[in-house]
């Protein structure tokens, strides 16, 4: 029971709290885009912190865990951006609370009716 195990466990716990809040966000948020904000972003930090915490507990795995975190940091925005773009283009509606949508004019300009 070294000191670093305690620190790592606490970091993992904080990461799990963010994971939980992100998942709560995708249940509570009103439309797809807000769900994406809560779901795939808040969980990114949760994921990174949980992996880092496990790396602190077991320092021999730190390099591999940092590699996993790096891949998550590179690939996650790519996939969520692609998903948001094609969802907006194929007409997934925005929630009623939406303040404004300046993307609509761009789509009309290009001749894609959402």
């Amino acid at each position: 029971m070294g000191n670093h195990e305690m620190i790592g466990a606490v970091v993992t716990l904080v990461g799990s709290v963010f994971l939980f809040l992100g998942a709560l966000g995708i249940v509570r948020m009103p439309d797809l885009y807000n769900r994406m904000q809560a779901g795939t972003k808040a969980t990114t930090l949760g994921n990174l912190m949980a992996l880092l915490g496990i790396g602190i507990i077991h320092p021999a795995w730190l390099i591999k865990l940092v590699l996993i975190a790096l891949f998550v940091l590179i690939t996650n925005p790519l996939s969520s951006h692609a998903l948001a773009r094609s969802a907006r283009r194929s007409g997934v509606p925005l929630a009623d609370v939406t303040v404004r949508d300046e993307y609509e004019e761009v789509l009309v300009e290009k001749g894609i009716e959402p």
Partner: protein
Amino acid sequence: MRTIVGFFAAFITLLALWLALVGNLDPQEIAAGSIVAVAVAVIARGAPFTGRSLRFLHPRRLVTALVYIPYLLWSIVESNVDVALRVIDPSLPIRPGIVRVRTRLKNPVARLVLANSITLTPGTLTVDLCEDELCIHWVDVQARNIDEATKKIVTGFERFLEVIFE
């Protein structure tokens, strides 16, 4: 000359990735990794990122890149706490909307990194990129026009990326 430098940059990066994945510095691993890295670098010789790699070794760009990484991580943490607080608030205080912002960056790789950084910070999500404007979904719209939105979202990242890539 440019292709040779690009080839070596790709080779070194791939070999470092291989060694990080296997996790030891055994001569056998280095030999096998070198063979695979040469093969991949030859196959991918025309790909982006492999050309003009030496200019990234300029000390000013390197230092800016090293400062940029903690800045990005800090803004991820900051905005994450913000979004998490919005989620657990029972009244769900969001004012979402899609806004357009301008970017001064011209280099495609710089634009890719900018769009990725904006997407990585919660609260903002890049929906589309057309010519020199980005369309961004924002959980809490605080700006009334395009200049204000640009100032709030893009300028912080752009300051660094301009030095690193342009």
